[in-house]
């Protein structure tokens, strides 16, 4: 799989380390009254969709940036990638 890095162009996915669903950008508020329940959902539960999936990849063998990659989990087709910092500024995984 080739990941279209927004700064470096097409890079082989083997240069990256995979973390998981991009909802991990939306860390819950630890001071909220229901923090324990929300952290359980955040840490453990996943949508695990068959189809489009927004997910976090770390360019460990490259510029060490975190990317949010949109990929089809049924076909492995990659539809786009952006810097996780940009995605976060736009409102996290939404």
């Amino acid at each position, binding site marked *: 799989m080739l990941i279209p890095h927004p700064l470096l162009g097409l890079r082989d996915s083997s240069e990256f380390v995979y973390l*998981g669903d991009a909802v991990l950008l939306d860390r819950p508020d630890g001071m909220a009254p229901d923090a324990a329940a929300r952290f359980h959902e955040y840490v*453990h539960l996943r*949508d*695990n969709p*068959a189809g489009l999936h927004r*997910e976090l990849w770390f360019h460990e063998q490259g510029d060490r940036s975190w990317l949010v990659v949109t990929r089809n989990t*049924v076909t*492995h087709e990659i539809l786009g990638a952006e810097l996780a910092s940009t995605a976060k500024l736009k409102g996290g995984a939404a």
Partner: protein
Amino acid sequence: MPAVAYSGFRVIRESLTGHRGWKPVWRDPQPQPAYDFIIVGGGGHGLATAYYLATVFRQARIAVLEKSWLGSGNIGRNTTIIRSNYLLPGNEPFYEFSMKLWENLEQELNFNAMVSQRGILNLIHSDGQRDAYRRRGNAMILAGADAELLDREQVRAMYPWLNFDNARFPIKGGLLQRRAGTARHDGVAWGYARGADRAGVDLIQNCEVTGFRIENGRIRGVETSRGPIAAGKVGVAVAGSSGRVMAMAGMRLPIESHVLQAFVTEGLKPAIDGVITFGAGHFYVSQSDKGGLVFGGDIDGYNSYAQRGNLAVIEDVTQGGMALMPMIGRARLLRVWGGIMDMSMDGSPIIDRTPVEGLYLNAGWCYGGFKATPASGYAFAHLLATGTPHDTARLMRLDRFERGYPIDEKGMGATPNLH
């Protein structure tokens, strides 16, 4: 259906009469409007569940719904290894229970599943690893399993062609479980399917569950591609599709679906009479009865529902093989395939009820579901029939993550792609 037993005498008789006496092994029934128990998923675990539900727990009106053909998923895609060399209390007694069921499986099913207790050897490459395996071996023995710690020379006597003097990962010994081995994966599915059918279970193929009928928090039945079917209790055993199926009941699971690749070489002369695992990388190998070297390694590491993986992991696995046994470089790869693993957040499975009354879940087998097939079916049938967990599966709860009681065999935390 008349119960026709298989035997050596029968094979001889059929061979003398032109093999005209063999009949289809199970019926192809139309779905009834209602059942007491519906098992979703006609793979190894689902078929075993139906078999034990009908035989051991004496339940009737059972159906197995399979969207494709029986045994079309991971039961036909694995590397056929059976073993009970786990560490933790929530796992090891369960897998040892499974091992004991394997040992009597063929007699019980009257079906040749080619269970071969050829032993599994986990190699040791460092002093720390020896300590870890000594602890694991003791945990196995405490749970009633067998384990032997071998030194370097004992390993050399078994497999002299291993790369003992690899500069980075010299082989210093191994943990051997002699009762472990391999089984014919498809034969296991067929044996359970035949046994379940003979016990009156309806095995309904090409019948995809498209929704659950839930009223006031209780399951009433399922919607399928062949019409609605009412049910008292529904058990879901769909491995890599667990997330998709349980989403129809409004549930999010502590599971990610990942692809795992497996490999087989061309047929070779007998070379490996057991199962060997490389301790310094993720690589394991055995030799099939046809002669092919069957091996595998890590999952690809990203969420996937495609039953195929990528080249980077193929290179990684074969490099592990080259480090362990350089002679494998002379073998030509015959086939590579992938299966979808339901990777749980702690690497251990789930056999439990769900928040929907009457709906039960059997999932999270990661890439270790094959060896668990008999115990998984037995424990799931126990749960479905009695409403209480089987003693060996009582820690495999769905809510253990929320309560803080994961069964984290590798101590990796909630990182499904690393288990």
